[in-house]
């Protein structure tokens, strides 16, 4: 608690300097030597390096003492900022790692003296991370080796379990700023292992095994490509003499030899490399459905059979080089597609959202157990902001639950003793004791996710297009082959020749190669630029959008950067703590904004009672017996001074404060303000929302919360307006209407139909639906949780995240908040990608036209095919990749 008091409210006591000259300070801002964040105060210095917080300095000291300072030489500011991490998180946080079940689930291998464990560490991002994490043995002699797999952000650690425990390793990593991500699924895997046969297949397990399957598939894909490539090169060389000299001069013995060798080399390509095309097309045919794999499988088969036939009868050297080349290039396209998916870590499910351990009250004692061990009838204790893991009955007298994660409705629900609360709710304010009535995996929330309620049901745009294309293409090719047959009919040999040639030469490469490459590059490029798409078809979907709907709070404004200032008498540390504890009780955005600037506020364990809220006016509660009133001037004033007098008293109070702090606090607009007029408070230009505060019946002053718009919004809107219709929906009041109208570049009157305020999450969803009903294709840009409903309803839901780890089940894409201003460029780039695919499509039509002419006329020879097919495929791939990359370069993404 002592540490807490010293650090937690430093912002309030330092406020006077920092607010007095914010601009001046930014110029001189120094970056933390460890993490590179701008240091708010430059008090923390060690060895001439400045640090932003004690945590960063501590890591530096630790590294210095272990002679590991090269960490800072490899990459500048490699560390993870520890400033926003509450250092006094409960010590018992890692208790569950001492549980033998958890431990054995995490360990990949264990013996008496050697054990192996693998952690995913999201912070791994640079060479310094790699270097430091492979030097873990320097910190503890129990760690033998550590190996990093950079692309997957994983570290494999071999250690001696007698000297260091799993918990010790996790704590070491956490101290260094590399906290591993430990998910429920590992625990589920364990449960699955022990109860095999009880059909305890839980989402997590399925996912884990999916991951393994993915890895094996990728390995086999490499193998298939290698074999196809090998066959491609060798059959080509074997066919070369014939291409060069014609059939006459080549020694017949060699011809036979070369022919047989080619067949021998190509058989593994048919049976192994190309096998999945046959499997997939068979599966789709079984369902009376023609997918894109069908024409490919058909083409490959005809190509192979006819080649073998021609070699056997000695007519030509066959088309086996075209055959293996085709398979090789198709598989390369597949590999590329898979690599794109790999880099997207969109595989988060609800389990990543749940806590992994939970506080259970057993025999009157509070103990921590892993969530998977939570049974029916356990008594659990949940604190502010913790998620309800399973349906439960409340045992505390009363409390508040926020269901915004499940229903999108953000207003907290009051619950009293005996009420049932559902999994996925979040406890707000007072800690709640409850008894579980369902197990974690059976609960409502799980079924919600397992029912895919949070997934969009419609088929992705890309699948739709490619399926339709596959069907049309197959019909077209088969009928063309029939026409060719009929044309040559009296001569059956010629007819067969032409018909098979058609089947061979027609290649749906625009769809199978151009789209994966162009979209793959687009997704990759956008990902690097901070715009993470769920899958490639979101790119296509994005180009169809014509209406953008923005949420205001947290999307256009940056809640973390709200300028919160306190105007009033200086608060003691004690008083600040009371206020923080009280503010945590309220879910009003303003309370949250103020509370978030009070570091560690959520960890305060002060007793808060008799909480009473007058919705959207203010609230009153009692912290450790001290009454606290927080709210609008009217709310607090009426309580303190009565209905008639509050305005006069408060106005005088506020006026005094403004004069007192005039230079210290107010920005240019306020300083110009005529101070000799006495009607001030009534008309003083509001610089932001005001939250008034009274403690123990004494007025203390007010917080001013100024929303800060994200950078570059005016330019962004200007650029977007040319292509999209823009709308703004906001859950807040319309105080910002003028500012927003200015950003949109329209008058306040015009803004009426483009902005709506006072919207609940459900209203937002309805607005989106209305727009869609009018035929608009809507992209919703929101902050994830409160807008879940609207994100879900929209055609493309883009969740804005200030950190990549943010999770929203409903969104199609996550946009890093500091890249919002580039959204217009990203949209244009998506449109370019679509144009590239269409361009590649025309190229392939051109090639197909040439090839099919040859085929129908009966001119197709192995030589023509050997030139035409690889050339057409590679130009399509080259064009798709090159043009997409070029467009990214031109748009400076």
């Amino acid at each position, binding site marked *: 608690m002592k540490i807490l008091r010293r650090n937690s409210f430093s912002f309030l006591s330092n406020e006077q300097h920092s607010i007095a000259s914010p601009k001046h300070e930014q110029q001189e801002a120094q970056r933390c030597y460890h993490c590179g964040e701008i240091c708010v105060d430059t008090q923390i210095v060690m060895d001439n390096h400045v640090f932003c917080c004690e945590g960063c300095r501590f890591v530096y000291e630790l590294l210095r003492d272990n002679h590991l300072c090269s960490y800072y030489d490899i990459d500048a500011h490699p560390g993870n900022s520890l400033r926003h991490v509450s250092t006094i998180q409960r010590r018992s946080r890692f208790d569950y790692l001492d549980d033998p079940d958890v431990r054995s689930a995490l360990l990949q291998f264990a013996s008496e003296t050697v054990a192996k464990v693998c952690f995913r560490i999201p912070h791994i991002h640079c060479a310094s991370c790699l270097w430091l994490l492979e030097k873990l043995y320097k910190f503890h002699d129990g760690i033998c080796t550590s190996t990093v797999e950079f692309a997957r952000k994983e570290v494999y650690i071999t250690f001696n379990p007698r000297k260091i425990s799993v918990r010790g390793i996790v704590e070491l990593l956490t101290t260094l700023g590399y906290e591993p991500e430990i998910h429920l699924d590992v625990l589920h895997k364990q449960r699955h292992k022990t109860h095999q046969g009880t059909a305890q297949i839980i989402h997590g397990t399925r996912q884990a095994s999916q991951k393994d399957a993915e890895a094996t598939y990728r390995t086999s894909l490499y193998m298939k490509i*290698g074999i196809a490539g*090998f066959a491609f090169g060798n059959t080509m060389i074997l066919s070369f003499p014939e291409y060069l000299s014609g059939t006459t001069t080549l020694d017949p013995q060699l011809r036979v*030899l070369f022919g047989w060798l080619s067949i021998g080399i190509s058989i593994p390509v048919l049976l192994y490399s190309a096998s999945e095309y046959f499997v997939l097309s068979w599966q789709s045919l079984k369902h009376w459905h023609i997918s894109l794999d069908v024409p490919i499988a058909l083409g490959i088969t005809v190509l192979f059979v006819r080649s073998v036939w021609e070699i056997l009868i000695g007519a030509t050297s066959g088309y086996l080089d075209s055959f293996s080349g085709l398979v090789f290039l198709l598989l390369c396209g597949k590999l590329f597609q898979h690599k794109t998916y790999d880099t997207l870590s969109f595989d988060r499910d609800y389990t990543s959202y749940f806590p992994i351990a939970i506080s259970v009250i057993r025999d009157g004692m509070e103990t921590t157990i892993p969530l998977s061990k939570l049974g029916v009838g356990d008594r659990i204790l949940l604190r502010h902001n913790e998620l309800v893991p399973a349906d439960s009955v409340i045992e505390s007298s009363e409390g508040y639950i926020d269901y915004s994660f499940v229903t999108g409705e953000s207003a907290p629900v009051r619950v009293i003793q005996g009420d049932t609360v559902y999994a996925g709710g979040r406890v707000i304010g007072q800690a709640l004791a409850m008894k579980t009535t369902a197990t974690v995996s059976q609960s409502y929330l799980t079924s919600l996710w397992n029912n895919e309620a949070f997934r969009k049901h419609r088929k992705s745009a890309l699948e739709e297009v490619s399926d339709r294309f596959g069907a049309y293409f197959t019909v077209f090719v088969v009928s063309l082959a029939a026409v060719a047959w009929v044309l040559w009919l009296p001569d059956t040999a010629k007819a067969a020749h032409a018909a098979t040639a058609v089947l061979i030469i027609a290649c749906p490469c625009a769809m199978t190669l151009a789209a994966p490459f162009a979209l793959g590059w687009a997704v990759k490029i956008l990902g690097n630029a901070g715009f993470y798409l769920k899958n490639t078809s979101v790119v296509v979907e994005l180009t169809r959008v014509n209406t953008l709907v923005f949420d205001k709070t947290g999307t256009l404004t940056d809640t973390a950067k709200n300028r919160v200032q306190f105007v009033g008498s200086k608060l003691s540390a004690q008083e600040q703590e009371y206020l923080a504890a009280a503010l945590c009780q309220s879910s009003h955005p303003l309370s949250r904004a103020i509370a978030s600037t009070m570091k560690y506020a959520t960890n305060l364990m002060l007793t808060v009672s008799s909480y009473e809220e007058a919705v959207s006016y203010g609230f009153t509660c009692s912290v450790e017996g001290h009454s606290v009133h927080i709210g609008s001037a009217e709310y607090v004033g009426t309580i303190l001074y009565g209905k008639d007098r509050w305005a006069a008293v408060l106005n005088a109070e506020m006026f005094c404060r403004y004069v007192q702090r005039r230079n210290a606090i107010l920005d240019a607009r306020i300083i110009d303000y005529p101070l000799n007029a006495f009607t001030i408070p009534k008309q003083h230009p509001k610089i932001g929302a005001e939250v008034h505060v009274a403690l123990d019946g004494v007025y203390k002053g007010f917080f001013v919360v100024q929303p800060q718009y994200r950078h570059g919004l005016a330019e962004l809107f200007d650029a977007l307006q040319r292509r999209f219709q823009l709308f703004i929906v906001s859950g807040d009041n319309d105080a910002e209407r003028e500012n927003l109208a200015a950003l949109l570049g329209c008058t306040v009157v015009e803004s009426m139909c483009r902005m709506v305020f006072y919207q609940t999450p459900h209203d937002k969803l309805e607005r989106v639906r209305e727009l869609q009903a009018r035929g608009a294709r809507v992209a919703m840009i929101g902050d994830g949780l409160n807008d879940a409903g609207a994100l879900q309803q929209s055609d493309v839901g883009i969740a804005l995240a200030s950190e990549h780890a943010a999770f929203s089940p409903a969104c199609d894409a996550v946009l890093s908040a500091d890249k919002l201003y580039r959204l217009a460029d990203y949209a244009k780039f998506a449109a370019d990608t679509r144009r590239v695919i269409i361009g590649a499509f025309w190229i392939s039509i051109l090639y197909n036209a040439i090839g099919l002419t040859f085929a129908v006329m009966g001119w197709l020879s192995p030589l023509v095919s050997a030139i035409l097919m690889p050339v057409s495929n590679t130009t399509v791939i080259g064009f798709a990749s090159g043009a997409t990359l070029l467009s990214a370069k031109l748009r400076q993404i």
Partner: protein
Amino acid sequence: MPTEIVMVLVGCSTAFAVTFLGAFIWAVKTGQFEDRTTPAMRILLDDKE
């Protein structure tokens, strides 16, 4: 005569090619394609002990 030489050469080259294919299969099977970013970074890190 030239036919026989070519036959021998074809045999040799095929044997070579198959050897390299074998090497590739071995590389895939021993997991050398699993992580292709980290080793490239690791080799650039100096160890000043």
